[in-house]
């Protein structure tokens, strides 16, 4: 015991002046960072007169990025806020990228070469409308700088030089939905075209110079319209009528509206709904029915003619005009893994410029979007490249019948993460290939030795750094002794599952799950959760681990669910169940069956529990524990917290061995006029706690109240639900609760007057840390609450403890209602926070650090010691020895404590801590639009030598010592002999 105390002291001392900072040459040794952009929404090519050919894209993750067309790398990237959705993107003046975002209310210009923002304009309007952007290119030389942006019902003319608003015109007075801005080939006028509420076509003719409304004409159509207007030429629009059986072409030249209606007989033969595609095809419109496309040509006199019907069309690009008068558009047909790209001429249907068939990896699903661009071949003919966006959110560039590059941008939208161990290294698995031979190993270490002794040349230093970074050790596909190498299994919004290697972040496998394919019964499948399903470690070691992917078919709670089981080593979908009962809660149970499958209870919207795996063995295990399995639900809308107990098998309509009924036990109702639930937090399911006792400096023991069944819940007054600053401090209250989820007992209720959300909380061991805004102090605050078990406090008799006559390790029930004591303290914190997590280690001995995702998309590691309610202004000597800091009003932020060092995890959403096998170390994975992974040792690596430990030096020293021992021994022998002969 004394030894342990002594060791603990050593650990404490060694950690009392920890610096987490990395040296410059340590960057990239154990961390990796990957940049993504998300699913591409719009793309604009910039290839003319540009040294570096690039494509500018806007994405669903609100990113604007310039990509290198040769390799697909990011030249630059800007990520807007979550609510700042990019609607339109274009290139103006050949040097600015112009974006219209936030529903048409923010117009920004970015410098094309480097992505710096040049100017920003806020376009104010009266009511939300669709947003349109028009960057005319062919005004006279003096007017080449006008950008027309429509948003919030107002048309704005903005100078592209500095973003000044030149004029403003309100258009949507009568609920008119303006859909197109048209600038005819010549002249100073533009047209704004839309459909009114009473199904009338509206055309505004506006002077570009001053915004003067030249003409406003409106004409009703008896048949009514359905869907959006399509604009095949600059003087006519085409729209489907309300019966969807005929097309109407509308001519609006000079504000004179003329309708021409055409019955399309070809439309009748199909069963699906006809949809007019928004693609801008020169002189043509495309109508989609049942995966087939009808191309309808618009003739000069306004008549329409069906040109062709093409089956299996997945995507059509906008038309592209390249040489004089030549326009073309791209068409993607897909049949299984085969993609056919056709570039057709808009002028002459019969001819096509290009027809390529490309086969690739089937794990990408269907083509969602296509953008085409042309280039001039060496023989002066035109070649085409196509940028395609796939169902799995990946981006591919096709050129000359091959995939030039691809980007896995599904990784920008990760929903959930879990881990899997790698396979155990077996004899016969050829390891020699990856491992250095002894000579190289020695050479590397000699170089290191030279560097240590300051003898190395800059070349040597570079070589050492290269060896360190490219260490084959870290990217091996087998389990390592320290548990650093793992597979990160991530579920993305696209329904694609990826396995990333923690060593270097490469994709080991990826799979678009069959269970998440759109079908008639499952309209909008989406993933929700990822759970470890089978973790073989004892008697089922020869089986591969597997994960459970849970999803639902819709957005409401009674949508049917999807369950898919995936092999974690190979990525094969072992089995899937879809559609099943609805899924509202997934409760992983702490039991496993004989094949190490984890039992899961899935609660449906009716409150029935469904047990998985569906085997009699699982039911047996579950039946034994029946009566001790509870679940709770937090109902935000009704301000209700309810507890349920799983009782018996279902009796009613679903007679099923795996279905269990539950009955309501308790409920906590928060008065909805004074409190609104805004955040909850519980302990992590897999968290390991080393000890229940906390020892003070004066040898006093406090017993932690460690329960997995505690829920932290925060409520605010309804007035304080809005943004910060929308309420006065007097009206704003923040309440925090600790609720036992078995009995519904409220262990603690605390109020913070003048505070409001958003609340970010993290619960670990016996403490909660939460972050909120203090309106009085105009600052963010963090509070800590530690919970101690008072009923165990009198276990202080040493003799009894020595003899083991105590009940401290007897199983406890929440119904015993132990007395608890809480300690809490609050501190100011400078940053606003996006996510909070806590480090976790294999045995829970190592001290903890809070991982705070700051608003600047960085991850800050803050010692839990700073959030210790026992901190006081003048700690005693004993307390100082224990490591208690003097109390300060603000939590310190050391620049070295950022684990992301100089990098940013753009759009940070979540931070996950995974324990390594080595107790001192925890693996950190932060994801948002970017991914970041690193290894962290909150109390330094006290249980292992550092990576840059010089084994060569140690070996050399040992050899030298042994030699010197021998030499001196022989020497002394000889001297002895001489002495005797004397």
């Amino acid at each position: 015991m004394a030894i342990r105390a002594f060791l603990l002291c050593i650990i404490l001392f060694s950690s009392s002046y920890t610096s987490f900072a990395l040296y410059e040459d340590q960057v990239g040794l154990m961390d990796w960072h990957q940049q993504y952009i998300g699913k591409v929404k719009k793309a604009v090519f910039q290839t003319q007169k540009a040294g570096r050919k690039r494509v500018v894209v806007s994405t669903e993750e609100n990113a604007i990025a310039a990509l290198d067309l040769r390799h697909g790398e990011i030249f630059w990237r800007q990520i807007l806020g979550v609510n700042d959705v990019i609607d339109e993107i274009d290139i103006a003046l050949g040097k600015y990228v112009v974006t219209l975002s936030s529903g048409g209310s923010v117009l920004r210009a970015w410098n094309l070469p480097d992505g710096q923002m040049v100017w920003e304009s806020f376009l104010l309007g009266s009511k939300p409308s669709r947003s349109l952007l028009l960057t005319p290119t062919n005004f006279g030389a003096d007017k080449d700088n006008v950008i027309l942006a429509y948003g919030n019902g107002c048309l704005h003319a903005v100078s592209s030089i500095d973003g000044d608003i030149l004029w403003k015109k309100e258009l949507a007075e009568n609920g008119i939905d303006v859909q197109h801005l048209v600038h005819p080939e010549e002249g100073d006028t533009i047209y704004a075209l839309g459909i009114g509420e009473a199904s009338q076509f509206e055309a505004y003719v506006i002077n570009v110079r001053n915004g003067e409304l030249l003409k406003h004409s409106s004409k009703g159509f008896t048949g009514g319209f359905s869907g959006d207007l399509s604009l095949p030429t600059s003087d006519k629009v085409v729209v489907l009528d309300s019966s969807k059986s005929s097309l109407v072409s509308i001519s609006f030249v000079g504000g004179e509206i003329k309708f021409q209606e055409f019955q399309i007989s070809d439309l009748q033969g199909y069963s699906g709904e006809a949809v007019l595609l928004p693609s801008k095809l020169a002189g043509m419109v495309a109508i989609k029915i049942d995966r087939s496309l009808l191309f309808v040509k618009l003739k000069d006199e306004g008549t329409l003619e069906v040109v062709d019907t093409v089956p299996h069309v997945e995507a059509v690009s906008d038309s592209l005009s390249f040489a004089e008068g030549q326009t073309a558009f791209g068409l993607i047909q897909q049949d299984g893994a085969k993609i056919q790209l056709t570039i057709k001429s808009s002028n002459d249907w019969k001819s096509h410029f290009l027809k390529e068939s490309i086969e690739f990896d089937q794990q990408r699903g269907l083509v969602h979007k296509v953008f085409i661009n042309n280039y001039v071949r060496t023989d002066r003919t035109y070649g085409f490249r196509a940028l395609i966006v796939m169902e799995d959110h990946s981006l591919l560039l096709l050129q000359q019948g091959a995939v030039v590059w691809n980007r896995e941008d599904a990784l920008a939208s990760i929903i959930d993460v879990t881990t899997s161990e790698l396979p155990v290294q077996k004899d016969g698995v050829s390891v020699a290939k990856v491992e250095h031979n002894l000579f190289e190993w020695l050479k590397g270490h000699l170089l290191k030795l030279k560097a240590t002794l300051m003898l190395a040349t800059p070349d040597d230093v570079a070589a050492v750094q290269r060896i360190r970074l490219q260490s084959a050790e870290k990217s091996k596909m087998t389990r390592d002794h320290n548990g650093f190498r793992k597979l990160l299994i991530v579920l993305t919004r696209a329904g694609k599952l990826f396995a990333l290697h923690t060593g270097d972040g490469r994709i080991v496998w990826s799979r678009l799950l069959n269970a998440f394919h759109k079908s008639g019964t499952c309209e909008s499948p989406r993933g929700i959760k990822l759970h470890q399903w089978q973790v073989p470690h004892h008697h089922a070691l020869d089986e591969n681990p597997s994960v459970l992917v849970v999803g639902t078919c819709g957005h409401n709670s009674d949508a049917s669910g999807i369950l898919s089981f995936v092999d974690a080593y190979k990525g094969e979908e072992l089995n899937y169940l879809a559609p099943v009962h609805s899924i509202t809660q997934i409760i992983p149970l702490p039991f496993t069956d004989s094949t190490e499958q984890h039992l899961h209870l899935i609660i449906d919207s009716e409150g029935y529990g469904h047990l998985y795996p569906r085997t009699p063995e699982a039911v047996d295990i579950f039946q034994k524990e029946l009566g001790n399995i509870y679940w709770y639900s937090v109902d935000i809308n009704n301000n209700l917290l309810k507890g349920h107990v799983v009782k018996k098998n279902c009796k009613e309509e679903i007679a099923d061995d795996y279905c269990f009924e539950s009955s309501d036990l308790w409920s906590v109702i928060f008065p909805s006029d004074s409190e609104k639930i805004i955040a909850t937090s519980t302990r992590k399911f897999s968290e390991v706690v080393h000890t229940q006792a906390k020892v003070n400096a004066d040898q006093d023991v406090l017993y932690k109240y460690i329960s997995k069944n505690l829920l932290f819940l925060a409520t605010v007054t309804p007035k304080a639900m809005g943004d910060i600053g929308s309420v006065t401090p007097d009206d704003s209250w923040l309440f925090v609760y600790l609720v036992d989820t078995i009995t519904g007992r409220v262990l603690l209720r605390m109020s913070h007057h003048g505070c409001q959300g958003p609340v970010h909380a993290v619960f670990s061991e016996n403490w909660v840390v939460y972050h909120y805004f203090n309106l009085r102090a105009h600052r963010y605050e963090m509070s800590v609450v530690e919970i101690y078990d008072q009923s165990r406090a009198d276990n202080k008799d040493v003799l009894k403890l020595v003899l083991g006559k105590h009940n401290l390790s007897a199983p406890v029930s929440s119904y015993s209602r132990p007395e608890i004591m809480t300690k809490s303290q609050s501190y100011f914190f400078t940053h606003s926070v996006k996510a909070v997590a806590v480090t976790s280690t294999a045995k829970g001995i190592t001290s903890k650090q809070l991982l705070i995702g700051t608003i600047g998309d960085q991850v800050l590691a803050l010692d839990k010691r700073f959030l210790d309610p026992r901190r006081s202004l003048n700690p005693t000597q004993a307390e100082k020895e224990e490591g208690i800091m003097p109390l300060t009003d603000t939590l310190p932020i050391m620049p070295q404590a950022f684990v992301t060092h100089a990098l940013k995890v753009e759009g940070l959403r979540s931070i996950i801590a995974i324990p390594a096998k080595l107790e001192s170390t925890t693996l950190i994975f932060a994801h948002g639009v970017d991914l970041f992974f690193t290894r962290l040792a909150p109390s330094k690596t006290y249980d292992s030598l550092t990576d840059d430990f010089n084994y060569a030096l140690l070996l050399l020293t040992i050899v030298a010592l042994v030699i010197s021992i021998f030499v001196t021994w022989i020497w002394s022998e000889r001297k002895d002999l001489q002495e005797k002969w004397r």
Partner: protein
Amino acid sequence: MDKGKAVMGMGRRWAVDFTDNSTSPPSRDIPDPLGFTRASQDQDDSTLSREKKNAEANWKSQKAWEVAQAPFKNLMMMGFMMWMAGSTVHLFSIGITVSALWQPVSALQGVGKVFEPYKDSKVDLLGPKLVFIALNLVGLGLGVWKLNTLGLLPTHASDWVSSLPPAQEVEYSGGGFF
């Protein structure tokens, strides 16, 4: 012996006979060295006077007492060192405490050996031995006390529960947002 002779016979120039003849009577033909009279040693007791003997016994008991009191000096020094070391755990204080514990223990182990030179039928060694043991026990006590002040003795409840795992819970609950 035979072997030695055989070797000699084979032409060795010299040989050393290691047989100790000192105790055996000079029955063999080897004469005693010059100036050595076997008789004087045998007649030692009888030739020495009683006073001389008493003086030696006195001297022995005096020495034994001195030896017995030696740990006291040691104790004082140890006390001083301990005071210097302070009450925090670090390398110096640990070293001092370990030596403070080790010295008395090793001294107690070698009680017999320490007093062996003074063993005499006329000298009563019990007193010095007891004092010696007592002083060393005091030293040991001092070491233990030091250990305790350093907080390295498991005398507190905290030492016995510091790695007690948390109690298992009977019930299990899960859930979240509905």
